[in-house]
């Protein structure tokens, strides 16, 4: 966990945009643009003033250093930030500074030179209520501004900004020697004597343009140090900061050079937009200002927010996610220990797109996987989040569904088909047809039908995962260590990570290599797009094999706009119980990538898209004519029945064997209405669960009778959830009229009024 924590140190989340970086004042352009785009000129003016001190002066004089850094520069034209600033200054109505009632601060500061830099420094220090004295050798404020712009603009701005501030101004006072001020008790001096002015020995010192003279810190800046007017003004502001540091700590901290911004401009947002031409006497109208502000693509490093579904859905930046995850997985028994990221940790689809997008290679999904393991160890993982899939895995690996067999008459095999547990659950034909074909090509091909154990990995249950991996390894060894022919890309990824000794190859590559021939090729005019599952991202051989097979079957293909650079369909990481809204959001987002029909080669992608009513087929549908777009998805109960049917069919058709044990059937005649079946599917409740509850209620008489509705209501705990069933009885039939479930546990029902009752739930 600590390894991942450290990776975030290089996160570029707080990197400033390039324009802010180039701006002498480091104006927060993102904030400024946001306010302009909602026409909040007063608020934008405040942002601008806080950065530049004298908005009217800067708007008039700024030569737009930012323009050279704007990513639009080479495309159309840099965003006209200076024009926006001037529009803002012109349109803002509330321009007077706020009068803060602050206590006076200790510290007497002398400022030599009432030019643009000296005034800026004085303004900052005055507003913090330091005792400020300005010495000016001429009889007026402004210095070089008199040569640069109309006096009515800058004099008015200076007057306005100093409106609420008190300071001592000594005009016509020439300071030629620092000793001259010695008796006046200054704690700090700012030398801003302008171009070719007297430097009082400040220039070219070891620590920058400053030194200590007795008890006084002497700083220099502005045009004296060779800067142009805007940088001179900015110097005054940063020297005010350096003086404050000096006064509070006694240390000289001369502002150093900032590191260049490492922000990354998002090329996806960058398309040609011509610069807006101002029509209001050289300034923008409201609509023009909004339009120009919209040209700004708000450069910052937001690759994670653009690509990672988790960052996007929770609207959280990586550093906040890191902190919340770390807090959540900290071991603590305290009642007040917070676990704010439990849902977030269980919402990651493990698609790995964050890692690919992040320029600093931060491994968020690995961190989240590790966090799930920690949660499980700390017993803080809500059991209901993964229970359904863990039970599903147990069933897929049980004697009712799992098959581990060499081909008929063979003792060992060089190849074995590993379809994964969901393919046959979706439709047994998906396994039967390809396996028969494989046998027709290489009759020694064995079959290993079971779960790849990824549910335990996603649930963070290391012990269970370890056991399943070991059992998988043993199954593989028992078959004679064959090459496994895999139908599911997620299984391939899981094998590569945990069972690298097993050689795998995808079914689709094998279909090609072993020369699959379509029985009947039906040409269709419809255009399809192959949806590559996140587990097959960048795995070119599989991707290409699927495309060639699909084209052979007679369809026309068109690539998705970004190829395989998309996240998960919403199935990965088993997030739909922890965060159903997220799963739905992601599924909708992926469905909307293209209007074309999708071809999936991960059965979970197909099921998710089908659930979203997105037209989709599995590539095996095209090759073996199994399902059509119109086929209906099986519900959770039917999926289990499919698995049993698959094993039974395989045993009888391939090996001529009879299936010995089948899951126990419900002893009662349970009738479930179709709308209740749908509800059970959403709640992920099996018919078996409902039977269980009703059987228990009949046996123990623990049920509530509703005389109006003539129904019985009973409940039973199923692992981490409690399932309630409402039913009515007609003869020997039990008709289920409602089901619902909750995660909270009902305590102490077993003891009632001090005596034990039979509540053996």
């Amino acid at each position, binding site marked *: 966990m600590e390894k991942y924590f450290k990776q975030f140190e290089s996160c570029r989340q707080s990197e400033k945009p390039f324009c802010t970086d180039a701006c002498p004042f480091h104006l927060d352009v993102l904030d400024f643009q946001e306010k302009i785009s909602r026409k909040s000129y007063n608020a934008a003016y405040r942002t601008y003033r806080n950065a530049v001190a004298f908005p009217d002066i800067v708007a008039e004089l700024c030569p737009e250093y930012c323009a050279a850094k704007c990513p639009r520069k080479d495309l159309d034209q840099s965003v006209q930030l200076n024009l926006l600033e001037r529009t803002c200054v012109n349109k803002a109505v509330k321009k007077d500074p706020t009068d803060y009632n602050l206590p006076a601060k200790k510290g007497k500061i002398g400022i030599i030179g009432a030019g643009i830099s000296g005034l800026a420094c004085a303004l900052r220090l005055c507003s913090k209520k330091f005792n400020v004295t300005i010495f000016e050798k001429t009889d007026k404020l402004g210095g070089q501004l008199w040569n640069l712009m109309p006096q009515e603009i800058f004099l008015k701005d200076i007057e306005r900004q100093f409106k609420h501030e008190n300071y001592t101004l000594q005009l016509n006072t020439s300071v030629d020697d620092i000793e001259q001020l010695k008796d006046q008790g200054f704690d700090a001096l700012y030398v801003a004597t302008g171009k070719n002015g007297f430097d009082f020995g400040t220039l070219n010192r070891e620590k920058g343009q400053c030194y200590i003279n007795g008890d006084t810190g002497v700083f220099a800046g502005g045009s004296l140090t060779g800067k142009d007017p805007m940088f001179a003004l900015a110097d005054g502001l940063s020297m005010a900061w350096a003086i404050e540091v000096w006064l509070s700590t006694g240390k000289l901290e001369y502002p150093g050079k900032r590191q260049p911004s490492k922000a990354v401009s998002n090329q996806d947002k960058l398309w040609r937009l011509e610069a807006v031409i101002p029509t209001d006497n050289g300034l923008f109208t409201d609509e023009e200002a909004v339009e120009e502000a919209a040209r700004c693509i708000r450069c910052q490093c937001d690759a994670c927010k653009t690509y990672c579904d988790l960052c996007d859905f929770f609207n959280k930046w990586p550093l906040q996610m890191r902190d919340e995850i770390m807090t959540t997985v900290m071991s603590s028994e305290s009642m007040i220990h917070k676990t704010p990221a439990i*849902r977030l940790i269980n919402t990651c689809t493990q698609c790995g797109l964050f890692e690919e997008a992040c320029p600093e290679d931060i491994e968020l999904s690995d961190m989240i996987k590790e966090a799930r393991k920690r949660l499980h160890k700390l*017993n803080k993982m809500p059991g209901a989040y993964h229970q359904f899939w863990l039970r599903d895995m147990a069933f897929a690996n049980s004697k009712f569904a799992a098959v581990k067999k060499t081909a008929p008459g063979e003792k060992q095999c060089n190849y074995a088909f590993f379809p994964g547990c969901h393919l046959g659950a979706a439709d047994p034909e998906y396994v039967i047809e390809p396996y028969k074909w494989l046998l027709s090509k290489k009759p020694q091909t064995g079959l290993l039908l079971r779960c790849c154990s990824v549910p335990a990995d996603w649930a963070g249950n290391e012990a269970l995962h370890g056991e399943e991996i070991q059992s998988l390894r043993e199954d593989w060894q028992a078959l004679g260590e064959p090459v496994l022919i895999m139908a599911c890309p997620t299984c391939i990824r899981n094998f590569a990570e945990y069972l690298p000794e097993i050689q795998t190859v995808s079914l689709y590559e094998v279909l090609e290599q072993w020369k699959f021939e379509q029985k009947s090729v039906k040409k269709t005019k419809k255009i399809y797009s192959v949806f590559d599952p996140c587990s097959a991202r960048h795995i070119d051989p599989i991707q290409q094999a699927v495309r060639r097979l699909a084209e052979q079957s007679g369809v026309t293909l068109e690539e998705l706009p970004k190829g395989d650079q998309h996240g998960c369909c919403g199935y990965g990481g088993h997030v739909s119980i922890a965060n159903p809204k997220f799963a739905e959001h992601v599924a909708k987002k992926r469905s909307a990538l293209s209007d074309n029909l999708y071809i999936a080669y991960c059965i979970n992608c197909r099921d998710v898209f089908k659930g979203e009513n997105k037209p989709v087929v599995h590539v095996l549908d095209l090759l073996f004519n199994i399902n059509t777009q119109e086929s209906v998805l099986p519900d959770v109960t039917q999926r289990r029945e499919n698995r049993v049917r698959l094993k039974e069919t395989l045993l009888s058709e391939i090996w001529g064997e009879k299936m010995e044990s089948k899951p126990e059937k419900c002893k009662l005649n349970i009738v479930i209405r179709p709308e209740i079946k749908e509800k059970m599917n959403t709640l992920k409740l099996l018919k078996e669960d409902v039977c269980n509850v009703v059987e228990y209620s009949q046996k123990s008489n623990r049920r509530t009778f509703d005389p*109006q509705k003539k129904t*019985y209501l009973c409940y039973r705990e199923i692992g981490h959830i409690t399932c309630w069933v409402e039913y009515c009885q007609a003869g020997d039939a039990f008709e289920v009229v409602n089901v619902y479930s909750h995660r909270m546990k009902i*305590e102490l029902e077993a003891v009632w009024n001090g005596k034990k009752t039979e509540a053996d739930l």
Partner: protein
Amino acid sequence: MEKKQKLICDRCKVEMVDKEVQFSYLGKSFRHKVKRCPECGQVYISEELVKGRMSQVEKMLEDK
């Protein structure tokens, strides 16, 4: 006004009454009044409560 629903405990054949029940989730325990049999203590929780307050509390504890 909504009619008060009458419910009978099928084992004891008595009317269920409002009594406190202790619930627990994610290591936290709390009490709430729901319908119970005054004889055997059997609990009845309506779908309305499950979908409403109960799911809110579950969500709150998961996000705490």
